[in-house]
């Protein structure tokens, strides 16, 4: 029983981690209509900056803030130089341009930091594993869950209770109307893109202590992030949250239980590798089911 609870908590933790990335990605797509493949590169930048700042002996919080800030600045620069020219273009052009950004970012990062992965330690106060009613859990992962939920709540307040949030929501559904009412849409775009970048950078910085900080780390997680926002409904923060948690839990439980379920049925050597294969496709099966049932995702936004 406690093992099942532990796996559920693992799923929640993984989902929250995906959400941090998915929130920014879905904002940018929902409001600006841009498919930004370079989102993972911004996440990578956040991780690299945080790890380097932490490497100089700076406190953990400072390192995370530095990572987020660097990502935000990079986001503003990317929006002004590249993305701004792509709003009116076809999605394929956007994919091409932002894919180029991935290549540039990967080479740029390996020029500055080298190809060897960096280390960022978990802050000493959070490094021990704690006992939670029957199982042991890394304290830092609990902090990640808390941070993710906190950020989700803050985003909810920002989107549904503030003037900026109102503009973002209005911009997502009635872009021309908002512009006609005298809102500077292009500044709104920069702000939204920067916000997405800050979220991605924060995710990178927070995850740096548990992952290998290395070139290409962005692409690894980007696919899961896309699955999450497609399941949740493109452009919806609520959808991104639900989609990310669903993907996190299904992926984790799949990896935890599919091999166990197969064991009594198939020969051990087949069960182990088949289980590994099946759990790897579990989230795509989830995506297919959701899309058959709700073609626009769980929480669709925008005009029908």
């Amino acid at each position: 029983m406690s093992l099942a609870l532990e796996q559920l908590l693992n799923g929640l933790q993984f989902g929250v981690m995906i959400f941090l990335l998915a929130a920014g990605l879905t904002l940018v797509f929902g409001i600006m209509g841009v498919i930004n493949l370079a989102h993972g590169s911004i996440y990578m930048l956040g991780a690299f900056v945080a790890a380097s700042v932490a490497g100089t002996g700076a406190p953990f919080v400072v390192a995370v803030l530095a990572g987020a800030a660097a990502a935000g600045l990079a986001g503003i620069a990317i929006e002004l130089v590249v993305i701004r020219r792509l709003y009116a273009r076809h999605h394929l052009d956007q994919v091409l341009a932002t894919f180029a950004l991935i290549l540039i970012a990967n080479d740029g990062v390996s020029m500055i930091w080298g190809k060897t992965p960096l280390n960022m330690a978990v802050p000493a106060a959070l490094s021990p594993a704690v006992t939670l009613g029957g199982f042991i859990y890394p304290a830092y992962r609990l902090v990640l869950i808390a941070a993710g939920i906190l950020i989700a709540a803050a985003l909810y307040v920002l989107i549904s209770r503030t003037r900026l949030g109102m503009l973002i929501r209005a911009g997502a559904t009635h872009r021309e109307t908002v512009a006609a009412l005298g809102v500077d849409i292009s500044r709104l775009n920069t702000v939204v893109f920067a916000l997405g970048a800050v979220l991605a950078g924060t995710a990178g910085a927070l995850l740096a202590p548990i992952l290998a900080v290395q070139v290409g780390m962005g692409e690894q997680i980007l696919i899961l992030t896309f699955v999450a926002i497609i399941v949740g409904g493109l452009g919806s923060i609520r959808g991104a949250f639900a989609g990310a948690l669903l993907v996190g839990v299904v992926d984790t439980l799949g990896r935890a239980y599919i091999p166990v379920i197969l064991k009594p049925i198939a020969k051990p050597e087949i069960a182990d590798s088949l289980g590994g294969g099946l759990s790897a496709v579990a989230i795509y099966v989830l995506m297919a089911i959701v899309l058959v049932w709700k073609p626009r995702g769980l929480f669709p936004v925008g005009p029908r």
Partner: protein
Amino acid sequence: MRIVARASLAALLTLSMAGSSAFAADPAPLKIGMITTLSTAGGYLGEDMRDGFQLAIDEEHGKLGGVPVQVVVEDDGLKPANGKLIADKFRIQDKIDVFTGIIYSNVALAVVPGLVESGAFYLSPNAGPSQLAGKGCNKNFFVVSWQNDTPHEATGQYAQYLGLKKMVVVAPNYTTGKDAVAGFKRTFHGEIAEEIYTALDQTDYSAELARIRAANADGIFYFLPGGLGINFLKQFTQAGLKKTMKVVLPEFSLESHVVAAVGNAAEGLYGTAHWLKDLPYAANKKFVSEFIKKYHREPTPYASQGYDTAKLLASGLRAVNGDVSKADAFRAALRKADFQSTRGAFKFGPNQFPIQDWYSARVVRDAKTGKLVIRGVGKIMAQAGDVYSNACKL
């Protein structure tokens, strides 16, 4: 004044022309085609191998075995199709006869058979797939690193030696991962409590870690190259599992890059290796100090493999004075493995894969510097070859 100036100019011109014609009389340097992985997350492996190879050339001031050489390097991006394209270009367009460099076995399997069947020589600094070790061996294919199974056999042997009774094994769900597990099981005879296969692009291992904890084993073996292993080890340590289980690793997961990237999580790890920084051989001491002096970083096994590959090539080139068209003489010279390897005694088995010693090692804190270092403990397998060599008919 003017005349003097003209005369001296003419003299200079003549001199420089004489210089250039003397230079032209020298044969053009022998080209070596290096196809390797320099981009992607596995890029640092190829980078280290390339730098080790270049170091051996620099020692001879641009020569190997007294023969001027020029290394032409291209990045395969870890894609077999890319590797094949580069190989065809090198072979057909640039007429290169000697090749090396490939890190990953999937690339090697796409590139090597075509090259060696066309009469070219291939000296592998890393990949040693089983498909090319048994029936598929070739007289022009030499492996300087190891057969892919051997690092895992050595690790199984070490786990056995450490007295571990019940192990969990973890590997990515692809051919090389399964070969690793098979190699480990060949020499470890205790119980395998759980056999876990992960995705190649996986970043989060919490589900697997919970399964590992529930398995109640006394040790773990994993083959998760590069970043995968870094992610896994960080999370394994944070979950508090290192207190209850011994971690026994093949050298891919226990080299200086990995130790630097996981920090304190590396302390106390057990591992095996065919090369270690502190091996007491003269060739190794020279290699380690020169490598650090030139590149300002710690050498890895990959760097030593690149260096040894260049040294092997040097021995072959010296024997034929750089004329690799004397294929039989060149091959016979390579087969002798007449060079001082960084890892001590080295010879080729019947399939031209290495027969060499394997060492056990541990990550400990250096008393003087306070830094974590990989320190050799002993020898775990002496003059070991591979299980496929019997099937090879050369």
